[in-house]
Every structure is written in structure tokens, then in C-alpha cells.
């Protein structure tokens, strides 16, 4: 389980400053913010814009372009389930349907108890052991709905 920090302007400024010296710093900054806060908080956008010498709209455009950046923090666990072809060939569509039904969420949704956020992903490089997923960054393979449920059950 990932533990995120609550929003804190000074902390955000510190994170942004720590990456600002890099060439093309936008993605490293956004990744660092998401790592700390679980998302790219809207409140951080003005500071990012200032440091990168961009408008807020431009920063917003960058954040929204990339599928990976969230606008709100996820649930306690993030399950990134592969939807791509090699996993489809071994039943990923059914696994995804079952998992969505069992969790009662659609893609990008978070369960009502805040336990799990379900995100689609297109290939994890685990295409010979599909259906595959990352649960809080840890790899899972040869999945079915039962093994997904078991992994969620035992996830730290």
C-alpha cells in the first residue's frame, strides 16, 4: 500500500525545486509530485508553471496529455490491469470484466471503501505470462479473477 502525503504547499515547492534544474524538467517534476501526493494536485500547477516558465494552461495541457498523471489521489491500492493484445489472447477481457464486476468499479474508478483504484494499462512487458497486472508496482501474471482477488486480499 502506498502512503501519500497530505497537500502541503511548502513541501510541493521543495519537490518542484529538487527537479527544476534538469533539462526538460516537466515530467520529472510531475512524477515526483505524484509520487509524494498520489496525484498532481491542482494547487501545485501554478508553482510548476512559474518554475518552468510556462502558463498554467500549458502545464494543465501537459498533465492531461499523459494517461499516467492523476488529478486526485487513488485508493489505498492501485491495480493496473493489462488490456493489450497478448493478454487478450489468454483471456484478459474476461478477467477485466470479472474484476470490474467484483470490485463494482469501471476503469479509472475507485471502490467505495477507498481500497482499490483500477487502471487500464496497455502492456507491461509480461506478455508471455499474461493476463498481467501491476499491484502497487509489484508484478502479477497468469491472472484470473480469483488470483486478482487473492492478491488484493493479501496486499500489504
Amino acid at each position, binding site marked *: 500500500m502506498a502512503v501519500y502525503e497530505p497537500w502541503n504547499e511548502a513541501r510541493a515547492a521543495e519537490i518542484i525545486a529538487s527537479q527544476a534544474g534538469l*533539462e*526538460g*524538467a*516537466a*515530467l*520529472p517534476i*510531475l*512524477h515526483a509530485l505524484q509520487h509524494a501526493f498520489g496525484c498532481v494536485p491542482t494547487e501545485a500547477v501554478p508553482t510548476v508553471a512559474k518554475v*518552468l516558465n510556462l502558463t498554467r494552461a500549458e502545464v494543465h*495541457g*501537459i498533465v492531461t*496529455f*499523459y*494517461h*499516467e*498523471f492523476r488529478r486526485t489521489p487513488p485508493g489505498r491500492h492501485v491495480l*493496473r490491469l493489462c488490456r*493489450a*493484445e*497478448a*493478454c*487478450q*489472447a*489468454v483471456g484478459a477481457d474476461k478477467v477485466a470484466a470479472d474484476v470490474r464486476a467484483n470490485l463494482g468499479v469501471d476503469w479509472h474508478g475507485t471502490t467505495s471503501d477507498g481500497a482499490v483504484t483500477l487502471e487500464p*494499462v*496497455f*502492456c*507491461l*512487458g*509480461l*506478455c*508471455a*505470462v*499474461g493476463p*498481467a497486472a*501491476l499491484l502497487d*508496482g509489484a*508484478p*502479477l*501474471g497468469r491472472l484470473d479473477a480469483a488470483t486478482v482477488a487473492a492478491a488484493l486480499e493479501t496486499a500489504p
Partner: protein
Amino acid sequence: MTRVFVSRDIFSVVLGANAVAAAFAPHATVVRTGSRGMVWLEPLVEVETPTGRIAYGPVTLADVPAILAGTAPSLGLTDEIPFMKRQTRVTFARCGVVDPFSLADYEAHGGLAALRKARELGAAATIDLVLKSGLRGRGGAGFPTGIKWKTTADADGDRKYIVCNADEGDSGTFADRMLMEGDPFSLIEGMAIAGFCVGATKGYVYTRSEYPHAIATFDTALAVARRAGVLGNDFDIEQRVGAGAYVCGEETALLESLEGKRGQVRAKPPLPAHKGLFGCPTVVNNVITLATVPAILTGGAEAYQALGIGRSRGTMPVQLAGNVKHGGLFEAGFGVSLGELVIDIGGGTLSGRPVRAVQVGGPLGAYFPPSLFDTPFDYEAFAARDGLVGHGGIVVFDDTVDLARQARFAMEFCAVESCGKCTPCRIGSTRGMETIDKIAAGEKVAANTELLRDLCHTLKFGSLCALGGFIPYPVLSALDHFPEDFLNPQGIAAE
């Protein structure tokens, strides 16, 4: 103590290699390597003997005592396993053999000799060798690497860059990942050679965020190389992480992303070799392309060139994925037929049902039926049959596959991943999805099929990059080779 080798590749880890390695640790010297690429045998354990490494797999915790006692049934010498023996390992020669974090191991297996050789030969002669080897980019487009390097070397600029494309977004591919996890120094050495040849002092590796394990492994390898002075003097490398956009694998979108912008495709010209990263001359190459260069320099351009067929020279690390019995990585000279790869080497489907279709070359690649299994693995041969070799991924499907559904997915993928610059790709893909839905529902099948073909034509000719331009490959190949899947019996009755 006996030396035992257990892979730390994510394939092996997901199948339980860490626990197996831990079980051996009190009784043997455990070396964590990359994977040999025989994924169905993972966790694979190799035990060092005077005659070579003996393989066991797939190994469970219960097997550990018998393996230590020498009483467990083995697979024999690893190199003699048919899947290994049939290969010509050039790029992946060290993968699965060496400890990916040990520079000493790397050097003991011929590492860093190529960089020394390049320095002796000089930049121009080294580029000439790369050109003579016939090496073409392994990222998909197959552009001659030597020409790209020469163009960048000849371009004016006080600052130049080497950018390694490790975005590996194609479903069914994992060669870049396995190389970065199993033999990262070969990529580092290849980039250092490229830097020396074109006059670049800085390299970036752009790795997709979906590869957390490879990112961590490669960062560790970079630190080791820097500590040893392999990096940090006249050339250094920084790894950057993508953020889940498939289009950022396209080289100009990748450069935009590295510059901190939205990953939108740039119009060419200018070529990256002239105006690439931050407007500076830049070599953009795939992981496999760069990691193959050291082996070419040490083994000789002629030897590499002698492998392969037609204009596809050298070897290709083919990736067998999806519903396949013997999934994994198989490196061989170009020219092996698709059927040989899928049936003889891959063993057919994992489900045991008949193979009905294979998709080669990722989400933009065509679906081929078994009647095209005589196609040799060769850029031109695949193109002649309206397909792609791409990055060398083969995804196998059994007879439960619905090709209309796969065609719809291709359009959906295009809609989700479009960078938004071209109307056909941005909007047409959604139209395509809707049209396939209508066909599947049996609504005006003939007219809608016609419309779908028109749309594919527009995408093919009205797209700035191959995302929109090639998405017709999976769609049209599904329509052409599997027309029965687009004929809903109820639909026909209703028409």
C-alpha cells in the same frame, strides 16, 4: 560452494524466482542473472558443473533439496536445450548468463572491448563498420543505423545527443526490457560508442513507466558504470521515465516529451539527426539497435552481415507472446518462417487449441492466418503481405479469437493513444470503432464495411505518423483474412 544461477528478470520474479533464490541461498552461491528467455521454464535454475550449466525448471520450492543433492530430473545443459540450441544469440549472448550489475562479469564476457576498438578505429571507421554490418533500427521502422549516425556526425552543432528509445509500447514485445534487466551494460556501451561516433557527450534513455523493475535495474547499472568511470568522463547517460503515452515511442513525440512538453508528433523534416532534442543533432535509436553495436564491433561487421536474408541482415530477437506454449525470447538470423516460429519453436498455443491468427509487430501490425505462415521473418517480406515485422513481437491467438473484436480494439487503441494532431487519427478512429460495432450488430454490413475500408484509406494517407497511418494494418488484415468474423448471422438475416 556450488554456484547456482537464478534470473531476476521480472518474468522470473512473477513466477516465483525470488523465493526459489532465497531457498538456495544458505546452501549455494546464488548469482542473480537476467532471463534466458525460456519463460515457460521459469523459474529456471542453473547449476554450475565442470561441463557447463545444468538447467532445471520450472522450479518450485519443493524441488530445491533434490536439485542441491543432484537427484532432481534436469533439462540437461542449458545451451543444449533445443530452444536455445536453435538460436543465434548475438544481442542476447550475455543475457541470462551474467550478473547484470557486475562490470567484471561483463568484461569477462567480452564487454567494453568494443568501446576500446571504436576509440582505436576512430569515429568515421566505426560508423563505416556499423553501416557495413547492415544493421537496421530494431524499433520498427528498420532505418539503416549507420546512415543515421553519419547524418548526425556530419550535422553542425556544439551539442549533440544520443537518445535511446526504451518506450517499448508494442503489446507482445519485451526484448528491450529483458536486455535492460539482463545485460544493461551492453546498452550503456552501445550508447557510449554512438556518442563517440557522432560527438555527443550526453545520452538519455527514455523508459516507459510501465517498466518499474527495468527502470530500477537500469538506474543501478548506470550508477555502477559511473562509479567505474565507464560513464561520467566524456559521456554520461540519464534515464527518464515516460508517463503512459504510447505515441511517445514515436521518435519526435519522444523528443517533445523529453523536452518537457506534450508528446505530440513533430512534422519531418527537420530530421532528429539535424534538429532533435532541444534543437540539437540527435541520434534516436531503439534499445536493441544500440545494444547490438558492441557485438558487431567485436564480432565483425562481415560476420553480422552474413546472417539474415535479403535486406534484413543480422539477427532479430523475436518475442513469442500471448496464447503460446513456449513463450519467450528467441534470437535468430532473419529468414526463419513465421510458421516455424509459432509452431516448431513456440509449440503452438498454450490452450492446446488450433492457432487461428497471429499479430506480428505490435498493435499496428497485421493479423496473419496460418495460410501465411510461410512468410519469412524479413522486413520486406512482411511489407509485401501488408504486414510489419516491427519490433519483432508475435502474439498468438487460438480459435476462440474474434477478429472483428480485435479490429475494434485496434481502433479503440488508436482513439485512446492518438496525439491529436491529425483529424483522421483523432476522430476517424472513434468513427471506425462505431462502424465496426454496427457491422458486428449486423447493421448494413456491406455499406458499413465499405465505409470502414474508406476510413482506413483516409487514415493511411492522412496521418502524420505511423500510429494513424498503420492502424489500417490490423483492421484490414482482420477484414481480408477473417471476413467470416464480420458476418453476424442475425445481421445477414436482417439485411
